[in-house]
């Protein structure tokens, strides 16, 4: 289903239009279900999560703003946020957002930056500009909803190394994708 059709259905759901809700579910649940499954691992957990996610979609439809994100990104964000909150509650990790961010030396030289900009702004192209191992870590973090600690043990690197990897990768991606 096209994005404008999904937008329209979300608008109808604001009006508490049940047939529109059913159509949205039919059009999008096969995309949101695998997102939950990859993050949560177990089928029954993914089914329970998907149920909660569509309850949220029904309740929060009026908060969708087409100016801010595409409807498919909005739906994916609701699904991922719900699933990630579940795994984070199940496997708690330490808080570290207040610590110093080691990103000062991640600045690129201007020449490389201009090469990146001309490469186009699509995520796959920009991921291809990262070192393969780091791109794979970014992808794994996103698809499986892993914490820094889990990623570090998966890759057998110290926690701080993993943080540096991903933070620098995020800055490089932003530079490549453009503002």
């Amino acid at each position, binding site marked *: 289903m096209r994005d404008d059709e999904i937008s329209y259905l979300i*608008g109808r759901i604001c009006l508490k239009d049940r047939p529109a809700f059913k159509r949205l579910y039919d059009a999008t649940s096969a995309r949101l279900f695998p997102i939950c499954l990859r993050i949560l691992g177990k089928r029954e957990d993914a089914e329970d999560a998907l149920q909660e996610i569509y309850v949220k979609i029904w309740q929060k*439809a009026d908060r969708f703003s*087409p100016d801010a994100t595409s409807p498919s990104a909005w739906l994916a964000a609701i699904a991922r946020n719900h699933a990630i909150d579940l795994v*984070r509650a199940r496997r708690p990790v330490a*808080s*570290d957002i207040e610590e110093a961010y080691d990103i000062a030396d991640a600045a690129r030289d201007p020449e490389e930056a201009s090469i990146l900009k001309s490469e186009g702004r699509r995520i796959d192209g920009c991921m291809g500009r990262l070192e393969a191992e780091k791109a794979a870590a970014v992808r794994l973090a996103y698809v499986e909803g892993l*914490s820094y600690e889990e990623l570090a043990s998966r890759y057998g690197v110290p926690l701080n190394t993993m943080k540096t990897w991903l933070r620098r990768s995020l800055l490089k991606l932003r530079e490549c994708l453009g503002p």
Partner: protein
Amino acid sequence: MTSPDQNSRDPRRDEVIAGEYVLGVLSAEDRRKVEARLQSDRAFAAMVNRWEENLSAINHELETMSPPPRVFTAVEQRLFDAPLADTSGARRSIWASVAFWRSAALAGFAFSMALLALGPEIFAPPERPQEMIAELSGSDNPISLMAHYDAARGVLTMTPAATRQDGGKSLELWLVEDGKTPVSLGVLSQSGDGTLMVPEAMRPMMNAGAVLAVSVEPLGGSPTGTATGPMVASGRARSF
């Protein structure tokens, strides 16, 4: 996220925190801090939205997989068969009633059948008065059509009306912009000509693509300012 240096507006650091949040690597505690900031910091919220948009393309690499039908059954049970929690629940349940939707869909069909079945004879009683009125409705339909015939001018006017029930209902017209709460354009007059004056402030919203919808409301219109009764008709505006 309440420490003073959080507002130092280092855009690179904010960009990284927004990206970490969307990737999902943060702790539960940090996720709550980010979400609290999203409520008040629009520039930061825009960074999060941009990451959501950019990274969501990764989801397309996942193979689609339909959930079992029991998931949607459970969703419907949660949303529509739950015990009524507040006084507006009764109204909400009308919105959610399948019977209403079925009858709304049937209504249009019933009207056309009624018109075909009645033919012109209904407007031609022996004494030929100057004005006549007929109410066209099917059984259990929440709306009907009022036919008003002015014999002197030969003009037949059809006006939608709420079927008289529970002391009378009104039909209210709503303007629905995608993603926004519907705003009322006013109550359709039961005896009038179907014309509504659009308030000055709302005229810019009357664009192609806006959805017009009609709901059945208590007599005089919605008491709350938002649609409370079943929606019986809707359509998207287009240019002509």
